[in-house]
């Protein structure tokens, strides 16, 4: 459940926050979200990854659909990647990696703090 919730909230966070902030602020926000939601280690990684990756994928597909611009194809050719489709995938993969590690970082931080507290409590 937490995994799904985290994935969904991650995606929403990316969609709304990324409009006004650069990607690295979104990364920090994803980590904070993971601290709050407390998904598992894997859940943090895949939730954050899927959240950001799918959000970016969705946005590129949306932009391509509403603009029918030739720019993605031109950029693909320019960067030696062939068609615009490869840029859609590259964007999604990059989003996944950045989001995944941000989520994981948040989980790791939470675990760190939690452990300390427990130690204090037990001690």
């Amino acid at each position, binding site marked *: 459940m937490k995994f799904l919730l985290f994935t969904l909230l991650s995606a929403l966070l990316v969609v709304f926050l990324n409009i006004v902030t650069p990607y690295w602020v979104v990364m920090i926000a994803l980590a904070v979200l993971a601290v709050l939601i407390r998904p598992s280690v894997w859940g943090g990684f895949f939730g954050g990854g899927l959240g950001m990756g799918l959000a970016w994928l969705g946005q590129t597909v949306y932009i391509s659909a509403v603009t029918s611009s030739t720019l993605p194809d031109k950029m693909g050719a*320019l960067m030696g990647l062939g068609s615009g489709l490869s840029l859609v995938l590259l*964007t999604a993969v990059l989003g996944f990696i950045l989001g995944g*590690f941000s989520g994981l970082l948040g989980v790791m931080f939470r675990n760190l703090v939690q452990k300390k507290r427990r130690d204090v409590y037990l001690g």
Partner: protein
Amino acid sequence: MKYISFLSVLILTCALGVLASLPFGQIPPLAPLLDPNHGFWQNSFSEDQLAEETLSLENLNAAVEVVYDEQLIPHIYAENELDLYRAQGYITAKHRLWQMEFQTRAAAGRLSEIVGPMALELDRMTRRKGLAYGAEKGISYLTEKDPATLALVEAYADGVNQYIAQLTDARLPVEYKLLNYRPETWSAYKSLLLLKYMSDMLVGDRDLEYSNLKKILGQVNLDRLYPEFPNENDPVIEKERIWDFTTLAPTKPDSLNYPEETLQLEPLAQPTEGTGSNNWAVSGKKTKNGNPILANDPHLSLNLPSLWYSMQLSTPTHTVKGATLPGALGIISGFNENIAWGVTNATRDTRDWYKITFQDASKKAYKYGQEWKPTEFRIEEIQVKGQEVFLDTVVYTHYGPVVYDQSFKADRQDVNFAMRWIVHQGTSNEQKTFMLLNKAKNHADYTEALKEYAAPAQNFVFASKSGDIAMRIQGKFPLKWKGQGKFFMNGADPRMEWQGYIPFEHNANTLNPERGFVSSANQHPVDSTYPYYVFDHSYEHYRNRRLNRELSRMEQITVADMKALQYDSYNLQAAESLPVMLNLLAGHGSASKEAQKYLADLKAWDFFADPAKKGQTLYSIWFAETTESIWRELMEQGAPVMRPNNYQTIALMSASPEDSVFDVHMAEGIQTAQYHVRVGFDSLLVAMKNWEAKEGDYGWADYKKTTIQHLVPNFKAFSVAGVNTGGGSGILNATGSRHGASWRMVVELGSTIKAFGIYPGGQSGNPGSRFYDNFIPIWANGDYVDFDFRKKEDQKGVLFKTTLK
């Protein structure tokens, strides 16, 4: 353990975040580029999808309305001129910011900042030519003499800068994202620099080559092979014009000494063949509706984003429409409610070279007459991306900058040459000329506007609603004695100085000539009775004659006729030379089947360079190979020289095919023109064999491969290649592979003005927009878009409206 895993994930995540924001060599930072909210994806939107009803522009006196028509041409309605130009700056930047910035960086010799060391030599050359130096002087001139114009240029700059200040990452032009830099502040200085850049694009000189040719050939042969006037001169100003003024032309001093050495310098880049333009106006007596019609098509390098940007500019007192140059104020080629005007390059050798004799290695003084004159040093600091600053010391004499010295392009020879060029003087006000033309109501206003204009010299064509047509060759032309400035001169001899300038009143011009039309196509300005020295190497010999023949012949002219004439692809050079060549060939090589096929193509050809014509392809290769063969020995003299022009070569081939110039000294026996025509034909067969094996079809458009190239040549995907269109160098539709009609305009000045225009590009500078290259197919077909005036309240054909306030 938890600490270690946390720390490693922290380090890894930060590293990823940082790595994604860094460029690697030529690869731009990936995350900012791919981020769908800020990166290149955002550049996929076309302008109408991003339309805003109001935008904030400060410092306006009243709100400004901007109405875009369906071609994204903005129509700006302002209450006064300051608001108008502020809005022009803002709107131009909105659609063409990257290009404006890139072009002025090129003009300032600052490309290395963006692209790295590969541009360093180019930047050094640009700076040694002193374009920035000239623009700096231009600003001081405006500050002192014309603060009113300066205020308008500064309003434009403020408009550009307000746009830059509002620019979000999402809207940043994609070129910035790819090259990983940001726009910097615009300034009045940059607008002036852009006009200097146009001079650099349009002005060349062959003084270096002529100096060498004089040594190699001797004066007699030089004059014979490179005559200053052609046999059949068909000048800009009609031959019938009487020059009824007392000339100020100086007489040539006796016993002048020229520099002795054969020059091993690397010649400056010249305006490419095919750079030129046509313009003309026909009077009402030759047109069907009785209204004057004016046409203009400047031929320049074909680039994307296009050099031109269309606009209508309106205040309560004037309305003007046409083509602007992004970065410059007002309309450059266009029409208002009373007049129309257009420009072609008025080629003339106005750039000269002086050998400088320095007193010693410190270069602090140079010889001038009996004295030593002090020099000035200008240190050029060139920022190079990824490297240390490059410092280049340029020595300035009273003539101008020492372009060639031991540290630059003259390493094989210890020589110093200074360049004298009107661009360095800064005592001109080209920007004001265009602003006055925008408001001109009649011929007197037009003449008054041109008084301020110095460089690059242009043939300004004019037509008015009141029925006048006119042409004026305007620039600040130095007074020269016959032959002055044709060769590198001795800078120590004061007699070699320019003797002042041709007075404005003496610049060649004509108003309502008897023949009922005025025209120019970069040919000789005048016939030989004009009392000033007007030498240039690159005068046109074919487009002008074709144009004048057609205009003389035509009656009951319509706008459609004028459009067709701009698109005319008749190859006069081929018509005059191909029969001579076929005759000289006299059956040579015709045993082979291929040769028979090509000869049949050539003989069937009607001399029109239309896209599918094979004859044009075959002729162009055959003629090029023939002239290559004729002048090979001349070109291999080991010093920079250039060939006689095609017109002269053809004149020799047809009138005196046995002339000694055709003899090849290295070959046995005596060669004539026939030998070269046959060598050329053999080369044609080889070239065509390769072409047909590799490319197949050899129709003209498939062969010449017209390409409209993005300003960054590496960005091939942003270029449009293989445009199917006819024409070529020396043809009225001068569209070659990389050059051609960069803007076409036809205006009929009746009671309501009818106007048409087109250029090979689109209104948007954004490669992702549907308005980036949408004009190209229309242009390639010789069609136009409607350029009639629009009123603020017109509702038809509105793409969207924006209010600036």
